[in-house]
């Protein structure tokens, strides 16, 4: 049993993978249907009121998936990552790991990477479901744009796990870690009010799938992707360093 394997086992035995995958898949399958039939749905619930909706588009279906998955999915992802990374919340278990691992990265990296991969794959599965459903119900999506958008969305979630890693080194409890990380991830887009900063913000990657389906070039998000990668690496490095220095 290695720490890597333990983290995968954690996802499966605690059934956290169901929460992750089910959330993204649910939105992936549901949102294109709601987009396709929204006019009919409003007509049924609206009674005599006549509702005129724009015709459903593939882009609107993807946007609907992203807006829902990026909120609920991110919340689930952050809580799951905090549960794995805030191991100091239980000093006896932390003591077991700390007094045996030769370096702190031996403990932290498997936790971060497994969480990031699991969260990213769940998001990608949701994107795949949304793509399929949209193509069948509304119309085809550009394959290149969807692929690039999925990669950017994946990268944003990796960044979110990096933020959780940093937060686990700043506070000990699972709730504190999740709360602090969510706070940072929610506040981050506000920095986009400064026009010069906006293209560099990792939070720009959240909307990348929709923009790319709408025809924007993938290169437009390279700066945000670069800063997300850099901040993830820095947050993880800093988190490992702080955790290594922390006293139980």
């Amino acid at each position, binding site marked *: 049993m290695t720490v890597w394997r333990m983290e995968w086992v954690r996802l499966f035995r605690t059934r956290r993978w169901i929460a992750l995958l089910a959330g993204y898949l649910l939105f992936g399958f549901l949102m294109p249907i709601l987009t396709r039939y929204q006019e009919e749905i409003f007509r049924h619930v609206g009674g005599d009121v006549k509702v005129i909706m724009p015709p459903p588009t593939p882009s609107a279906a993807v946007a609907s998936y992203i807006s829902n998955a990026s909120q609920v999915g991110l919340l689930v992802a952050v809580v799951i990552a905090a549960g794995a990374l805030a191991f100091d919340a239980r000093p006896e278990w932390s003591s*077991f790991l700390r007094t045996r691992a030769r370096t702190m990265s031996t403990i932290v990296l498997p936790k971060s990477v497994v969480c990031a991969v699991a969260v990213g794959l769940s998001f990608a599965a949701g994107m795949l479901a949304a793509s399929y459903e949209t193509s069948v119900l509304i119309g085809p999506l550009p394959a290149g744009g969807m692929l690039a958008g999925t990669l950017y969305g994946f990268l944003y979630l990796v960044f979110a796990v990096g933020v959780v890693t940093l937060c686990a080194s700043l506070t000990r409890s699972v709730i504190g870690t999740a709360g602090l990380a969510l706070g940072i991830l929610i506040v981050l887009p506000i920095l986009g009010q400064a026009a010069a900063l906006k293209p560099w913000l990792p939070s720009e990657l959240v909307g990348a799938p929709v923009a790319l389906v709408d025809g924007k070039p993938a290169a437009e998000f390279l700066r945000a992707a670069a800063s997300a990668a850099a901040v993830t690496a820095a947050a993880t490095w800093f988190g490992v360093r702080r955790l290594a220095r922390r006293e139980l």
Partner: protein
Amino acid sequence: MQAAVETEGLRKIYGPVAALDGVSLHVDAGSVYGLVGPNGAGKTTLLGILAGVRRATAGSVRIGVPRERIAVMPDTPQFEPWLSAYEVVDLARRLIAPEVPEREVEQALGEAGLADVAGRRVGGFSRGMLQRLGLAATIVSRPSLLILDEPCSALDPAGRRDVLDLVTRLGRRGTVLFSSHILGDVQRVCDSVGVLREGRLLLEGSLDDLLADYVRPAFLVRARPPLDPVVGALRAQPWVLAADMIGGSELRVEVRSLEEGERSLAGALAGAGARVISFEPEAADLESVFLEMTS
């Protein structure tokens, strides 16, 4: 003798409180060292510093074995409840000593008395079983230095006996440093003892020396009443330091030396007309030392 652990003037300050105040400890390599002290004496803090999970405010620590040859067990081990006992011990092996073959996992579980529940998830384990599992996860790496914090605190008498036997066996392979407030356990397995109180190491030394230095030799005499004349006669002897009745038919006779007592006590009792049922030297125990030092 070469030291497995040596500290010099170790201090640990938490706010206004000195949890450790100038502790200079010396644990000989190959010994079983018992750290005793009342609750809040600083035992866990001291072991935490030696284990590397806490930092000293001042002073120095010298560990005579490589980091990967040290194994540590906290007083209340906890593990992920969804892991099996086998997986916990195997995880410990992979983390600290991946070169140790996997078959050692089963052996460690067997030594800790958990062979039958190796495949069970630890979420359903009792405190005693968790403590045994903590011990298995500690010994699997074949450590040269074992640091055990209250290893028997959650065990029933049979479990305590098993674990103390295991500690004795481990002491033959390496050095064991363990804390306990169960003085009988310490006396049973340790060859050296340190007494800690309020962050200070009151005394340290081999168990035999401590008992010889701090326990006054005494005899327990059982005889038929009346005992008052016997007490009076014994107190008149120059080699008797004290003679006191314990209940109606027992006397405790403190003597200058065991040898003098062995030579003269029987004659003095006969001379006083005592109807003696039995007499024997009082067992020297660590509890007496501990109470004398910490009172």
